[in-house]
């Protein structure tokens, strides 16, 4: 179904795209949170016209000359054309209810929001910028984890971003991490789970290992709701579940309560 109409993948309601976009991609009938593009997310949360993008031209190289069904280089070039962005993360500075913030969001459409050198570098620069400018840090994660095609370089981005956060804690501004569907692997196991406050969108899949890997390992079906936001809240692993429509107010409230 192309053009003006689309279908909710959960309740199968036919939805009018402009209305859906107005509702930040939340199904008006069943409240299912559809994926939301990085820029749309940042615009929806930050004060009007306050966002200034950083490092928008940082693009990937192919250090392993990796090739599977397609050459990595061709894959990233194709996506750059299709999505109008060179990699899977958009970062910048702006204001939230007047508070200075450094904010970033994943573009899940770009190779499953996987973290290679570019994502790791942009996240790290954003953390450094937040410390330097005495701004709060807000990150929206939606990622399958580290990007295989960049090999050990991708793995090392977990250490790099976590080390940057260790320095960020010298400052007095909070880091609010928002976990969106899905957040797993190397992103979950580094900066995403290191928020001073960790929020999640409803029913997002969040965890270390993907459900398929766990099922193969333990050779049994996983229970319903396993690794979903509600499950994590119950196990004490996140601070709160916040519907998309209320995210802006909730983040602003926390930044106000914790900021200096």
């Amino acid at each position: 179904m192309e053009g003006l109409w689309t279908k909710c993948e959960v309740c199968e309601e036919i939805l009018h795209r402009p209305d859906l976009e107005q509702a930040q991609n939340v199904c008006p009938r069943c409240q299912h949170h559809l994926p939301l593009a990085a820029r749309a997310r940042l615009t929806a949360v930050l004060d009007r016209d306050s966002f200034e993008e950083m490092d928008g031209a940082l693009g990937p190289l192919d250090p392993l000359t990796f090739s599977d069904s397609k050459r990595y280089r061709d894959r990233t070039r194709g996506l750059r054309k299709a999505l109008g962005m060179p990699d899977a993360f958009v970062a910048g500075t702006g204001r939230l209810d007047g508070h200075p913030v450094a904010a970033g969001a994943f573009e899940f459409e770009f190779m499953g929001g996987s973290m290679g050198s570019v994502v790791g570098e942009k996240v790290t620069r954003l953390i450094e910028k937040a410390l330097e400018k005495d701004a709060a840090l807000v990150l929206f994660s939606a990622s399958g984890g580290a990007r295989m095609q960049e090999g050990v370089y991708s793995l090392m981005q977990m250490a790099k971003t976590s080390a940057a956060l260790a320095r960020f804690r010298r400052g007095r501004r909070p880091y609010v991490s928002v976990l969106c569907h899905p957040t797993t692997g190397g992103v979950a196991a580094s900066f995403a789970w290191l928020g001073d406050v960790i929020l999640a969108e409803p029913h997002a899949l969040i965890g270390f290992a993907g459900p398929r890997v766990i099922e193969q390992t333990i050779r049994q079906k996983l229970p319903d709701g396993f690794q979903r936001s509600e499950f994590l809240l119950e196990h004490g692993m996140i601070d709160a579940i916040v519907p998309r429509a209320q995210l802006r107010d909730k983040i602003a409230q926390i930044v106000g309560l914790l900021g200096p």
Partner: protein
Amino acid sequence: MTVLDFEKPIRELERKIDELKELASGEGVDFDEEIRKLERKARRLQVEIFSDLSPWQIVQLARHAERPYVLDYVQFLFTDFAELHGDRRFAEDPALIGGFARFDGEPVLVLGHQKGRNTKENLLRNFGMPRPEGYRKATRLARLAARFGRPVLTFIDTSGAYPGIGSEERGQAQAIAECLETMAGLPVPVIATVIGEGGSGGALAIGVGNRILMLQYAYYSVISPEGCSSILFREPTRAPRAAEALKLTAGDLRGFGVVDEVVLESPGGAHRDPARTAENLGRALRQHLAQLRALSPDELVEDRYRRFRGMGVFEQVE
């Protein structure tokens, strides 16, 4: 005894040599010349085979059932080892061991993934795949080392953190992330050595060092060759190809600047002569530790930050 396919021709010659030696002592016949010839041949064959190992063969060596593990290196390199247990939250995890010990007489913290040698041990050690409690224990001990100014020496050897229901319920990702951040901020020297398998985030969790060393036939990768193969090539049987594509050998990582030094193993791999391999490792650790001891606590944190801050390759697109 486990013998890998490519080790077989060497083992076969060695078996012949042993037979001849037995025959010689039993019958009083002089086979010295013949034995020396075969020994030379075996050595040459080993050099030949090991000079041209594929990445997949190196992965097999890294996983070799007789390969020395962290507790073996503790035996060889440290004295006065006091193992400490538990994360103080939920459980003890024997898949990741830790404790203080003396290295050249000076107290240090040792952390490492520990596999088992047999089924019973592997049940206890969970094949060296830690649960969140392992990483929380590592974090706890690393903070203790920081408080008492003890250098941290870690030994990486895991196929990965354990993917199970309990792991997810108790925050595997959070436990690894906290370990990463904690290690990044330690005001003491940290040296991480990949001694066998460096399997993704579960390996890296104890890998944030001022120096990163790697044994010659260890591997370090963002994902296991099998995992990469089933995701990208749609079947796990193409793991050898994935191993090649992932560029996961010590030589590759040295080339990327991710690893500071490749430590040579005994000829034929660490399992052929663990003592000799440990000696090489001890020498490398001694040298790097001496350099790091010259830095102040602030300089150590800064040095480690610079070390990881520089990792990654990218370009400005127009």
